[in-house]
């Protein structure tokens, strides 16, 4: 099976949220609250246990005193966020039940019939994607429409996207398409268009990658995401040091304590009769 991926091109996104709607309906995802955030047109705010696609509205109004109300000062960018389906996935490595697996399409999938809701994947995802659904108890995230892909169909969000902002296909082909698109954008003067795909970090690249304008951090796309596994060696070493110290200290103090004259030897009876003195 070919490794598939998502290329989300923010320069084509019109912020219609068809991807959010299509995902919700196809995957039968419960509502994630009805709130007015006040942050542009974004009332979804983040990916989560009940949001597998999330359209970001990166909006900057002119600053007071520098530009007045001149409308050309305003910038408004949209980008549909999704689980990154990491090459080295923090959630997959952290999962103690083997519920989170790598599928034949290279995507990262939470098997709902295995997950026991321990919540460890939640703190292992460098992108804040997977979360535990409070009323259900299990962890949920984008399935990369595993069911649809199995049937040879494209994911619901990609199919519903009216502008071709969400492209689905073979990962290697998408990477070439992204390079062509960047070259085209740069040639037409949009020189701040970049591809976000953290290949040179411990994440090792993502299967869902993004073409954005400007600093990817404005889209909450971290420049240097790291999987927690990079910390395992130093942390377990520290645990070994602590364990060694604990054994050495307790052996030493009990060995010395037996010889010290300060405290009378406490026999079995002494502890039973405590308080008698």
């Amino acid at each position, binding site marked *: 099976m070919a490794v598939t991926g998502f290329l989300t091109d923010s320069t084509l996104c019109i912020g219609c949220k068809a991807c959010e709607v299509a995902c919700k309906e196809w995957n039968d995802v419960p509502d994630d609250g009805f709130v007015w955030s006040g942050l542009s047109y974004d009332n979804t705010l983040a990916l989560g246990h009940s949001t597998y696609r999330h359209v970001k509205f990166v909006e900057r109004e002119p600053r007071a005193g520098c530009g007045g109300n001149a409308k050309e000062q305003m910038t408004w960018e949209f980008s549909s966020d999704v689980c990154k389906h990491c090459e080295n996935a923090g959630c997959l490595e952290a999962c103690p039940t*083997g519920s989170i697996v790598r599928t034949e399409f290279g995507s990262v999938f939470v098997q709902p019939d295995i*997950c026991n*809701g*321990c919540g460890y994947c939640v*703190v292992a995802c460098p992108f804040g994607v997977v979360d535990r659904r409070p009323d259900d108890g299990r962890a949920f995230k984008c399935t990369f429409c595993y069911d649809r892909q199995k049937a040879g169909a494209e994911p619901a969000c990609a199919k519903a996207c009216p502008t071709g902002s969400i492209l689905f296909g073979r990962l290697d082909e998408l990477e070439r398409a992204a390079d062509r698109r960047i070259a085209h954008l740069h040639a037409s003067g949009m020189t701040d268009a970049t591809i976000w795909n953290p290949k040179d970090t411990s994440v090792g690249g993502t299967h869902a990658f993004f073409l954005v304008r400007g*600093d990817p951090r404005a889209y909450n796309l971290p420049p240097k*995401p790291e999987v927690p596994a990079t910390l395992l060696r130093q942390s377990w070493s*520290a645990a070994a040091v602590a364990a060694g110290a604990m054994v050495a200290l307790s052996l030493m*103090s009990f060995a*010395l304590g037996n010889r010290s004259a300060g405290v009378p030897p406490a026999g079995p009876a002494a502890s039973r009769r405590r308080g008698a003195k």
Partner: protein
Amino acid sequence: MKPHIPETRLDEIREQAALGHLDAKGIRPSGSPFPEETSYYGLPLVKPPVWTWEVPLYFFVGGAAGASSVLAFSAQLAGASPSLVRDARWVAAIGAAVSGPLLILDLGRPERFLNMLRVFKPQSPMSMGAWTLSVFGTATTAAVISEKVRLPRIGDTAAFVAALSGLAMATYTGVLIGATVIPVWAKHARSLPIHFGASALASATALLNLRGHDDAALNTLGLAAAAFETYMGIEIESRDDIESEPLRRGPTSTTIRIGGFFSGPLPLVLRLLGIRSKRARRVAAASALLGSLITRVAWIEAGKASARDSRPSLR
């Protein structure tokens, strides 16, 4: 200081504004590069831990039980009183018996707790923890039961296994939260296992003290743990990285400091007095127990606060 702006500049700004375009510094002409912004409305990037009260309580109980089994083993090896060995084994067994339900209760699907033992996954500290607790629970229970039914050889073997897995029980929780993406935890991935180990040792000695044991060794160990916890407090206070901000600012810092005070300086002084005074030893024990519990709660709360800050994750 306020910059000097001539009155005529205000007229200039008004005239330009009326025409819809200001030439002031900081203006971006149309079609200019997309403005730099460091985050998405400052919204959090990573998700906060979903764990509730069961988890810090488990860290506390499991840690104390683990360290207690180490004490039981070394006390026996060094020829300490059999009653101390027996009580330490019991503390370990009871702690293990409480730990299991606590961990199961925290699951989103408690009825599926056995799925933890579907796979053995060294790269997952949670998997290692589940297996450690299973071995520890079995070994500590076997140790106390075989003593009751007078099978000392089996009891001693079980106690050895309990001590080995107890070492992991006392320290692995530091790895569990250290090896995550939560900035404040990840920043302390190296110190947390030692910190939690010291905390576990302090509470195990404290429990045995309160059970009525007054071996000098217990006081020495309590002293050592309190000394390390004091050092840890100084280390936390002297940091100025943004990852560690929840430990130094806001409500979580208060909890960290209260936990630190009851784990570090207070028992340190009392343990020193405790070389002579039994009462000081008892108070030190109570303080260390309380400090250990508050410390575990504080670290989980600090992790939740840390997840709300997107700055460290976006660097």
